[in-house]
């Protein structure tokens, strides 16, 4: 089998997995399963980046995504394990999964808007895909070159990132202190 054909098939397979896993993680009710499928979706995205020959430069963002997913899983696990289930009806806030008319209206309006936007996108970009010129080969930049590019042109951004990280450390301390006071 032709290498490009194999690559193409694996690509479409990965994309299908990503879409299917995303669908499951949005629509399932169980929180642990949602985060589990989210993690799998991130894993497939990481694999896809290798198929796009951008795996190595994508490593650092991928690590951030995976760490975020793990933390989300921890929080959800904490909620599932330690959350008190009510023995009696908690009023409007406690209603579980009942379908209200405004929920249905919300779903219908969201679905219709998304479909309309999708139609607009496809009809507007059709011309672009007919006229594009592909590059002859698959060439991507390597990690050392990327680091050099970031270091030489984007130093102010790294500076602001450090500032906001310091800010967030102070904020964490503040939030933890206020939580201790509340407890």
């Amino acid at each position, binding site marked *: 089998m032709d290498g490009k054909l194999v690559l193409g098939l694996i690509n479409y397979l990965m994309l299908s997995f990503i879409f299917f896993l995303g669908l499951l993680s949005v629509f399932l009710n169980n929180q642990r399963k949602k985060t589990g499928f989210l993690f799998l979706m991130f894993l497939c995205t990481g694999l896809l980046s290798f198929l796009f020959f951008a795996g190595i430069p994508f490593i650092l963002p991928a690590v951030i995504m995976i760490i975020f997913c793990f933390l989300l899983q921890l929080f959800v696990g904490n909620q599932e394990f330690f959350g008190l289930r009510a023995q009696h009806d908690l009023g409007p806030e406690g209603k579980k999964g009942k379908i209200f008319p405004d929920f249905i209206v919300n779903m219908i309006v969201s679905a219709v808007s998304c479909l309309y936007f999708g139609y607009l996108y496809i009809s507007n970009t059709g011309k672009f895909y007919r006229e594009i010129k592909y590059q002859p080969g698959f060439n991507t930049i390597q990690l050392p070159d990327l680091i050099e590019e970031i270091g030489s042109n*984007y130093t102010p951004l790294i500076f602001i990132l450090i500032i906001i990280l310091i800010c967030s450390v102070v*904020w964490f301390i503040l939030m933890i202190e*206020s939580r201790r006071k509340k407890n």
Partner: protein
Amino acid sequence: MIFLNLVKNIAEGIYPFYGSAVILFIAFILLFFALSGKKNAKIFFLVFSFAGISVALVLNIIMFLQKGLFSNYLFSYDRLELIKTGIILFAAINILVVISINKFEKKNFIKILLIFLLTIVSFTFYIPASNFIMIFTSLVFTISGIFMLFTSLNSDIGYTVSKEYILRNHTIRFFTVSLFALALMLAGYSVMYGSTDLKSFVQLIEAEKITDSMIKTGLFVLYGSLFVYLFIFPLQSAYIKLLKRCESASATVIWFLYFPAGLFLFLKMRKVFFYFAEGNIYIIYAVYIVAFVCIAAGNIGAVKSSSIKRILAFFYYSVFGTALIFFGFSGSGLLEENMAAIAICANLSAAAFTYFPFHLLSAKMEQHNKKDEIANLYGLLKQHKYLGVCLVIILLGFPLLLLSGTFFSFTNFIEPVIKIISVPAETGAGSGTFSLLNYLGAGTLMTGVLFLIINVVRLIAAVGKTRISAGDGSREAGKISLPKFYYIYLTLYCLAILFLLAGNILKIFDISIFPLEASEFIQMI
């Protein structure tokens, strides 16, 4: 000598961020005292921060006059960026006033101050950003800072458990919508990348790539994300609900840090907007409709509300809607493009001149009466004549400053309306459709002004109304003891508003008391 050369090289290298460097220096020192709760430290750092932000404001202007324009791979610092930075630093001084009044006694005050200063530094990097990566990333960092500041101000405010929980829910709703808007922005940039790897809006227009279908689609997604970010009707739910429930200093953070970030992004994309809007009926219709909905729904919502914070939250839409009408006029050829760009900054300034003093006073009354309602204003004119008069001037100033563009004159922004009404055949492209369009724009502006005046008159009437005594001596009609600082603060704002209004009125008779002529100012942008 080597040291002096080093300092000189650093100074050359950090232009135009001298103001940011000053604020960062203060934040760096604050870092070592972040855990302190001592009163002397708080006073010292509060005064230090005020001084630092004021110095940053003045330094920015002086350095710009000396060094002029600046442009590189990431930033583009022009006169409009100088104005934007000035507005944000001015707002920062006032937000600091509100924070210090409400939070000084708290143990976390220095931490809140530190978060505030770092957020302002991040904002000052966002303002001159012109490269797409710089714009997007610095915007996300700024919003993260605003989120941290907002939640810090709203922690430990003495609410009951259920009220705190409701506030938490609305905070999460509000900032999750912002996160969604930012994710949509990333999607917009990714779609644009399909057509070109040009790195700024200016490059897009100069390379004439802007008519590519992928670029147009990406820009559509970007404008959609901005629509969501600004909570424009009908997506206003999270914003309106949050503003009523949050602490008073955090409300000013939303009005004068969060929303300006979105408005400045709209300004960064103004050349793109004008490129497409010029002579395009559909875009101008869309602009007028959005402006009309913002102004009408905002003012109707304010009329039906009895909560002062909610009224101010709705009023904010008038600020944005009025500026958007000027963009529509510009698209129709009735107003210069630069004037429309200035209109957003001018309207923000007008809002700042009104909101800060009014909100400070109403927050104090809310604290005194334990309720946020328009009845808090009853009897103010009778019991505190001076404050009542100040408040009336401030309230009257709001619609008038919006119409005059704050620092210009009434004629600059009313002229298009006068043109449309008096000589309709000569306006726009001359076709019947354009005349109808311009009538829509003029009608929207006049409706907006009328609604706003009705709301302002309602508030002024509340100030003059006599309050029915509650029978409790400690809360008798309108009696509230205020520190001297409130009188000084309100007086300064009244004088400023009177000066601006006098200048705008005298301009009609060709007498100028402002240091710069409006036409000179516009040509500088």
